[in-house]
């Protein structure tokens, strides 16, 4: 009985939250566009369905994130997720960004994410991790000494 109630609430919650938070971000994405001046970019896809995300980053002198944007197309969850992510990472240094786990990314969305939608929720995060892993030596050194 309790479990049934949970699932019912879960369903209602999902629809309501879907409407409010996710939809708002879907209709009014944060940081959407292509930076006119950027240091790195990376693109990836959610192969099962066609979500497509590119992230652009500009660093400041201390190699923190000075400016960031995302571009592409995808479902409400992938767009909301990368919106929240790009907002979160502004001003942050490499170590902090690298430490963001997949579960923390999902928690940012604030709603339960089904197994099937994890790929959507984590697409932006995947792109970000790829930027920081691939470019770690050449483009994004650790914070400048003394800062």
């Amino acid at each position: 009985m309790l479990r049934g109630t949970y699932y019912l609430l879960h369903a209602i919650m999902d629809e309501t939250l879907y409407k409010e938070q996710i939809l708002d971000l879907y209709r009014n994405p944060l940081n959407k566009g292509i930076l006119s001046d950027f240091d790195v970019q990376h693109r990836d896809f959610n192969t099962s369905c066609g979500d497509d995300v590119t992230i652009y980053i500009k660093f400041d002198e201390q190699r923190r994130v000075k400016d960031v944007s995302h571009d592409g197309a995808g479902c409400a969850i992938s767009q909301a997720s990368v919106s929240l992510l790009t907002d979160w990472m502004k001003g942050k240094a490499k170590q902090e960004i690298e430490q963001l786990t997949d579960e923390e990314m999902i928690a940012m969305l604030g709603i339960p994410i089904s197994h099937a939608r994890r790929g959507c929720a984590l697409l932006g995060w995947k792109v970000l991790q790829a930027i920081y892993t691939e470019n770690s030596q050449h483009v994004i050194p650790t914070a400048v000494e003394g800062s």
Partner: protein
Amino acid sequence: MKHIKSQFPIFSLHPNMVYLDTGASALKPQCVIDAMNTYYAQYGVNIHRGMYPISDQATIVYEQSRDTVARFINAESNEIIVTSGTTHGLNMLSYIVESEITSEHNIVITRMEHHANMIPWQKLCARTGASLRYIELTDDLCLDMDSARHVIDNHTKIVAFTSLSNVLGTIVPSKELIDLAHSVGAYAIIDGAQGIVHQKIDVKELDCDFLVFSGHKLYGPTGVGIVYGKKEHLERLEPFFTGGDMIKYVTYQTAEWTDIPHKFEAGTPPIAELIGLGKAIQFVEEIGWENIVQHEHELTAYALEKLSGIVRIIGPNSEEKQSGVISFLVGDLHPHDVGDLLGQNNIAVRVGHHCAMPLIQKLGIVGTVRASFGVYNTKEDVDTLIEGICKTKKIFT
């Protein structure tokens, strides 16, 4: 058709589920589940090997299931090769015909193929230097036969095509295409993964060289599929997988193949699964093709009518030209979001590119929502789908 739903035990657990994803996999009737369990519980041993009674029994039931498959498509039993699915079958064909393909040849497929009937041919062309050509689609997303006549020429060695599009629902004029292939001496290969579920396929009447399909869309289990090949081809061609069960005589240096079809069936096959498929075919035959085709035609027509004005149909949008499968888009909503919300309302559809990414890209869309019908679906299911779509639209505005 009303009593049919009661034969599917999954509806006891999920009585209100509106399952519109038979195109991905069919639900299983109790008789199929029982047939497989009986094999495992009562005579679940290997076939073709033992000298003891239940091994005999397993072998007989297995080979009788093969006979059932053969009769279902009007083939001989030794023209039926058991595989693990359509994808396995198409990949296998791309290897066993390789010795007959050179860089002077071309292979023809269509713009609406599933990856399983596209990528193996891409790879075959890469290995042999042959070129890959595509038959175009008409404006209403049917097969363009003028294009077919244009791309199929004297150097065409293979024409491989789906008999029913898993994305668009388009019915392909198989016989016409097969005749065209034969007029230039090419193999005609039918990807029957969807088509086998929605229409009776008679390989003698169609005269196709090969037909490939899976068990799990036909109310049978996963893990089993069939390649039908004309006897003269199977006798001439060399096997791809080798090993036990497909040999007549082996030395440390050589191996001599056994007769068809076992020549192409190395290793222990999916025994329970083929028995399950045999049962599923009997289930389908008991309902009767006339009933199935009529039921599906009515449902498709009803759905297309109800959906018009509410969604954008991605397909021919005509009950004459499509059956059993309907792809659509709901305004500018991403298919993912639509599918998720429908799923939360107990409506199972599929979303995405349906393993036909080039087609989806060619159509300039991100993917579709796809509803596909099985023998257990009703007009009420279509009504519930419409309700769900309207509800989804409301949530997003």
